[in-house]
């Protein structure tokens, strides 16, 4: 097991390096003045220009620059956001918890939702259920998440006035205790709902396919021959075994959700990493853009690693090296 973890970690490490190098190369490829490329479209005072040139060794050969950049990033130095007058890492660390909050709540709804729908539609013998499922799965797939967000805002926030349209709530809140929680929850409700519907339907599709696959396995026949009831078979032999693929995919998806649900955060002006990314793109704050991408790649790789380990714990065939 320990060997398995180490092996996976060793596989992840070069991936991170590759991404950092690729990102720096992209920055390097931006046509025009390299200092401007790093700083964005702002007039750069000469003293600052010199500092940047020195810091990123812009007058040295490309490989020196790359090496210099990689070591800086690995030490947590993503550079300085001239636009925000703050270090990029600080910006990222401020935004990340909000993204994690949204993603966690969204997943906490999406996973049980997806599993339930998947098991029901996967085990059903009713043609009607099947038809309803096929149609709604297709429609859910076709709706872009951000448009779903807009529809939710227009209906629940603007029409019914149940929820605020955007944002994360007042910076300094007067409410306390339970009221505070409720206040936060009202802001979180719509983005989390959009997130959960979108991802939940995707999970349902995966779960359904997996359930159908499990039902065709021989051990289901064995379970039937033991005289188990349908619900016993589903809860003991179908549920866990069909959840394995979902665990993997949900885990990977959580990784990419940590990198910011860019579109949803934009719809709801949810000030997480995704919105930081979009704002920085608009302001051409390239160091921040690259910083967010590297950070999210890191989050994805880390999550993938954790998922692999978790999966191994769930599946004895991997755990015991079979």
């Amino acid at each position: 097991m320990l060997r398995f973890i180490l092996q996976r970690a060793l596989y992840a490490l070069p991936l991170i390096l590759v991404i950092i190098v690729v990102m720096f190369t992209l920055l390097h490829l931006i046509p025009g003045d390299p200092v401007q490329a790093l700083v964005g479209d702002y007039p750069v005072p000469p003293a600052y220009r010199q500092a940047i040139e020195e810091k990123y060794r812009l007058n040295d050969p490309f490989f020196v620059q790359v090496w210099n950049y990689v070591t800086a990033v690995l030490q947590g130095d993503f550079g300085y956001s001239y636009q925000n007058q703050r270090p990029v890492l600080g910006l990222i660390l401020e935004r990340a918890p909000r993204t994690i909050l949204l993603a966690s709540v969204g997943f906490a709804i999406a996973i049980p939702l997806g599993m339930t729908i998947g098991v029901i539609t996967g085990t059903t013998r009713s043609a009607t259920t099947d038809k309803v499922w096929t149609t709604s799965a297709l429609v859910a797939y076709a709706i872009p998440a951000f448009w779903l967000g807009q529809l939710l805002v227009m209906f629940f926030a603007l029409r019914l006035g149940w929820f605020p349209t955007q944002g994360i709530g007042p910076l300094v809140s007067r409410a306390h205790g339970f009221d505070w929680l409720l206040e936060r929850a009202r802001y979180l409700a719509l983005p989390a709902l959009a997130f959960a519907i979108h991802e939940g339907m995707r999970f349902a599709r995966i779960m359904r396919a997996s359930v159908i696959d499990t039902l065709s396995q021989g051990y289901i026949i064995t379970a039937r021959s033991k005289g188990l009831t349908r619900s016993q078979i589903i809860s003991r032999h179908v549920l866990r075994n069909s959840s394995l693929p979902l665990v993997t995919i949900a885990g990977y998806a959580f990784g990419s959700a940590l990198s910011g649900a860019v579109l949803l955060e934009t719809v709801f002006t949810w000030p997480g990493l995704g919105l930081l990314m979009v704002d920085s793109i608009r302001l051409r704050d390239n160091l921040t853009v690259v910083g967010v991408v590297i950070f999210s790649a890191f989050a994805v790789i880390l999550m993938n690693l954790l998922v692999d380990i978790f999966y191994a714990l769930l599946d004895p065939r991997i755990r015991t090296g079979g």
Partner: protein
Amino acid sequence: MTIPQSQQIGNVKHLVAVKNLKVHFQVTDRIVRAVDGVDFHVNPAECVGIVGESGSGKSTLVRAVSRLMPNLRVKELSGDVQFEGRDVLKMSEGDLRELRRSRGFSMIFQDPLGYLNPTHRVGRQIAEALSPHGNVQSDSQRVQSLLEEAGFQEPNNVARSFPHELSGGMRQRVMIAIALARDPKLLFADEPTTALDSTVQLQVLQTLYRLHKERNMAVVIITHDLGVVAELCDRVYVMQTGKVVETADSVDLFERPKHTYSARLVELSAHRSSFRGAQYE
């Protein structure tokens, strides 16, 4: 309605009596007549062989009789299948479960790995067969004795293993232990040794034969190996393309095959065994 009919079908002494069974599948736009009008019976404590090439419908026959049909679209399922005078095909799901839990019939399969849940330990899977709410701790005594009966020397280690940690022969023994859990009167064995090494084949067959004798349990063995039939079975059915072409005592079949197809099977198996004999010399 059932009582007079069952007497008509034949001897009430039969454990299983099948009359004119038809199982047709819809595969894409074709209809496959897997079983096409088969009569078949098994007496208590008898060992019956069903032989035939793959695709002759022998597996489908026992799957239909035990109501463990594969996941195909069934176009037609008709005929009369009686287990101790009760119509199996018309049984409700609940009655069927009841029958499986109470000295009815069990089944083992060709590929034991696929028929064991990969994520559960062996002990738990056997305990589950003992009672649906089976608990590994409280049933551990009975799990152990079942495993011993199935031929394991160290039942405790086996009970704690996962299926993938066992060899093919051991997995088939685990399947046997599961099948024995409810003390069935009839065991269907669907090509139980085809996937195993030849030395292991013999051991598993010996175990089956011992259990058949010790427990007075009827056994139906599906195989394409006539040697197995000659060794173990009292009677044999020969199937070809969904129909029974010959039924005979297994000794008679070898000495005086009536149907040309049976004759060919016997001839083939003679070739095979003489070849095998030459190998061992």
